[in-house]
């Protein structure tokens, strides 16, 4: 007969968490009752898990320890899920809160469904209900979905279908060119205005009207230590844009309306508009110095070590 000290399955799920409860058990308030009942249920759970893992008996201390660990673990899930849900300004945790919590705690969520449906699973009988709370009968709509096989029957019923069944509706995505442009323009304008106003509010400003500093706030002019850098270097946004922009992907709506990209090169006569020569042409006919691989340029040569000079 083996004696369980540490549950084999539990060992990797229980991690941290303290909540050892100590103190007298004299009082028998409803809260205490509830606590005891819960504790008892958890003990049953631990015991059945141990049985499932092949233990025949266990020392009380071991069962108690495992129970304590399980309780801490579940408490931590609850606490953490609550934080996640509150972080997104909700009061009721959703499934994703739980999932994020489990992931955060190092639990491989993907293994859970398979574990829940394992064949050697032991079903625990419903805990004795002392004071069944009377749930007011709500108006039922539709047929509640029955429990699937892996959910014990004493678990609460599914809610009415209309509370979770979704009927996706498809609205035509806005594709009207004019609306899109309008939207993009006003969105950009709003962002710019908000941003500049924010900057103006949080920093020094100048104003065109002595009596009013808030209607047209100008961010104060500030000299640069190296003024040419900001003036000459493209901004990061522009750099990014340059990389992304491929002249071939001008926007579809206007593409056909745009003029031919390059001036035709047929020429002769003074009518030829020669500004096309300006086209940034980087391909060049070839090196003037041939295809030398080693560039000999005095500025690339290494700096010499000083010579020892002799005095005259």
């Amino acid at each position, binding site marked *: 007969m083996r004696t369980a000290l540490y549950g084999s399955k539990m060992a990797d799920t229980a991690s941290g968490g303290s909540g050892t409860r100590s103190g007298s058990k004299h009082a028998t308030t409803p809260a205490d009752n509830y606590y005891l009942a819960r504790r008892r249920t958890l003990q049953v759970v631990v015991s059945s898990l141990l049985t499932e893992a092949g233990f025949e008996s266990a020392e009380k201390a071991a069962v108690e320890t495992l129970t304590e660990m399980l309780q801490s673990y579940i408490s931590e899930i609850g606490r953490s899920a609550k934080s996640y849900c509150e972080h997104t300004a909700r009061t009721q945790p959703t499934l994703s809160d739980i999932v994020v919590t489990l992931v955060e705690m190092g639990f491989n969520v993907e293994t859970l469904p398979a574990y829940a449906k394992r064949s050697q699973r032991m079903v625990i009988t419903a805990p004795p209900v002392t004071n069944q709370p009377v749930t007011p009968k709500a108006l039922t709509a539709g047929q509640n979905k029955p429990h699937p096989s892996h959910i014990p029957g004493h678990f609460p019923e599914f809610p009415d279908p209309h509370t979770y069944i979704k009927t996706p509706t498809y609205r035509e995505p806005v594709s009207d060119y004019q609306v899109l442009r309008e939207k993009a323009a006003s969105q950009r304008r709003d962002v710019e205005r908000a941003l500049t106003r924010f900057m103006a509010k949080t920093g020094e400003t100048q104003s*065109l009207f002595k009596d009013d500093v808030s209607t047209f706030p100008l961010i104060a*002019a500030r000299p640069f*230590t190296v003024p040419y850098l900001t*003036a000459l270097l493209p901004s990061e946004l522009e750099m990014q844009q340059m990389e992304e922009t491929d002249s071939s992907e001008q926007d579809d709506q206007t593409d056909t309306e745009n003029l031919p990209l390059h001036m035709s090169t047929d020429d002769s*006569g003074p009518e030829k508009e*020669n500004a096309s020569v300006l086209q940034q042409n980087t391909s060049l006919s070839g090196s003037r110095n041939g295809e030398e691989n080693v560039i000999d340029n005095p500025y690339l040569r290494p700096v010499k070590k000083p010579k020892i000079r002799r005095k005259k």
Partner: protein
Amino acid sequence: QTPTGMLLFRMNRKKGDKGFESPRPTTHQVVCINNINFQRKSVVGYVELTIFPTVANLNRIKLNSKQCRIYRVRVNDLEAAFIYNDPTLEVCHHESKQRNLNYFSNAYAAAVSAVDPDAGNGELCIKVPSELWKHVDELKVLKVHINFSLDQPKGGLHFVVPNMEGSMAERGAHVFSCGYQNSTRFWFPCVDSYSELCTWKLEYTVDAAMVAVSNGDLVETVYTHDMRKKTFHYMLTIPTAASNISLAIGPFEILVDPYMHEVTHFCLPQLLPLLKHTTSYLHEVFEFYEEILTCRYPYSCFKTVFIDEAYVEVAAYASMSIFSTNLLHSAMIIDETPLTRRCLAQALAQQFFGCFISRMSWSDEWVLKGISGYIYGLWMKKTFGVNEYRHWIKQELDQIVAYELKTGGVLLHPIFGGGKEKDNPASHLHFSIKHPHTLSWEYYTMFQCKAHLVMRLIENRISMEFMLQVFNKLLSLASTASSQKFQSHMWSQMLVSTSGFLKSISNVSGKDIQPLIKQWVDQSGVVKFYGSFAFNRKRNVLELEIKQDYTSPGTQKYVGPLKVTVQELDGSFNHTLQIEENSLKHDIPCHSKSRSLEMFADSPLLWIRIDPDMSVLRKVEFEQSDFMWQYQLRYERDVVAQEEAILALEKFPTPASRLALTDILEQEQCFYRVRMLACFCLAKIANSMVSTWTGPPAMKSLFTRMFCCKTCPNIVKTNNFMNFQSYFLQKTMPVAMALLRDVHNLCPKEVLMFILDLIKYNDNRKNKFSDNYYRAELIDALANSVTPAVSVNNEVRTLDNLNPDVRLILEEITRFLNMEKLLPSYRHTITVSCLKAIRVLQKNGHVPSDPALFKSYAEYGHFIDVRIAALEAVVDYTKGTFFKYFDTL
């Protein structure tokens, strides 16, 4: 003593023309700068000049030196006494009673003459030690060694030291030589003349993180013993004038030109990507010049350095050029690209004529500026096309004509007598033209402009082939001379003189260009023609009358051939008229019969052009009727003729003019500058025709058709500037449209809303190019739409009584100006336009007039273009209050 830096300088020359020979020809000079302190902005070094005395009793040697502190002078290792006196420091003595411009000008000219190296003078006078007098009498070599330092130089050498944390290299501190004409004496003692050549050894010891760029070949770079500094050793074996010596030191990024490995480019930290793009074109300019001149680039290497706070955009020196860093640009920038390329081409042209070939004297300057400007023009023609070239020539011609008519003549080749300047050829000016240093900057700019135009006139006379042969001859003679030893007295071949140049022309072409030279080079002034005509139907003759105004200042009388082109129904006919003293009228027989078409009942003449090839430096005011100008605009192929016609049509606000202009505007084959000009003319005509104008505001439907979406005509297409011609037109049209006015003399609401929509829907996300210039012009357009506020007895401007349209404009300007702080545009073009627009709003009484904003943008530390715009606004404000002050008197 361990002198780390020294400058060797030597020269020799023979001045054929002037009959003047330097008593102290230098053959070689060493310049050594062994300490540069960026914190204190100081320089310490020495120079050593190798001098061959040409006269026996040479007991004093005069050299040029300004603002340098001279510690010690030795001649052949003997201590020498010296006197330093710079008369330009105190031009007029304090006690002098006369305080007027004329007195100052004369005194200043005298001071400059007193130190003129070409007359053997200088600020520094060294006494040759008596021990050496015998040595001198034997005409043996003297070595003059001068230790000097320079503290906080006010000119000649400019320090840029950003005020921030870090080492000088990290801060991007740099220093470079600069100045106008011969100003090398500002940073080391020398014979500061363009006509005294010598070979050079240049040494600079700088911080190990810095690079020193100077003339000639970099022979080696050696660390100092403590390994914290390094010395750059340069040798310049081609005889060069001290005035063509230059220097730039800074933590430069180095780029070896991928096409020409002997060419190296330098820029300030972080700008390397821009440098790569900007210089990627330079080799084509090299190829062009070498090809037309059939001559290799004369130096063994070439360096370009891009620095901040440049004195001028382009400065050319022997084998290197110093450029403003603001010429650098990325591939996304359209507008700056041609401007920068022009600067590069200008700099390179001056390498051949100006640096390699120098000048005999100041009065020969026009030849150098003329030739370099002329070959630069040839490059323009090849690169940007005939249209751009002709447009440029016309622009230059208009400029010089306007300047001379306003200010007085510009004389290219002044000849100075030995005596007083009683018969000063430039008595109309407030300054002497005897020295480059007494000229006004504007005069000198116009001088250069005229010089290259006159070269073009010579080309017209002798053909381009001969012209290029002359240049080639000058270059090959100089090239042969440059490799000779000093003693061979050949170096003077490297100096160009007016007489030598003219002799060369006559030898090569066999033509006599003396009258042309007399007209445009030896005398100043331009020609002013007034032309009108009548058609004599009976004789089928065109009676042309050409009058001249040669009495107004800045004019001269023209006698000689004048080409007139008459466009008749049957074709174009050229006539060469002989302009003589007394003949005003010229009868020109017509070829076409007026009967051929009914609509031309009056005459078979379509249009007439006087001097179409711009072969005379002139202004022409010609009278012909509106339909003739319209024909000229529509059917004449020359862009200059088209532009002339557009300007003339401003006076004929008729539906026919409107149609002609609109047609030109729509014609894609038409030169884009002509179309841009047509926009502004159309706006003016529309305003003159405001009571009878039909249809939408001028250009609106055209703009919509060209640049807006087909499905939603109020929305402009997303930007695509691949076609530069349409790009320039797209930029210009709104600016011109904003000048439209309704019957109340207000900008039509429709136009303002149109411009605001352009701003609103502007979308550059998919564009390959930056739209900063486009957006700047949209702001300019907003400013153009502003009209004077209706003011009720000078009420104070407040927000409450702000015009609602102005409110919309201000909204945009505020947003643009603020966004510029977060995402600055290239060269801050948008800030510049915003400042200008705000000044316009102030001036028109919509916003309280207040210079405070501009003053803050004018401060040091803002980008130069912004500062200039801000200062202009402050000046404009000051002018306004100034006149208001007088109004109240």
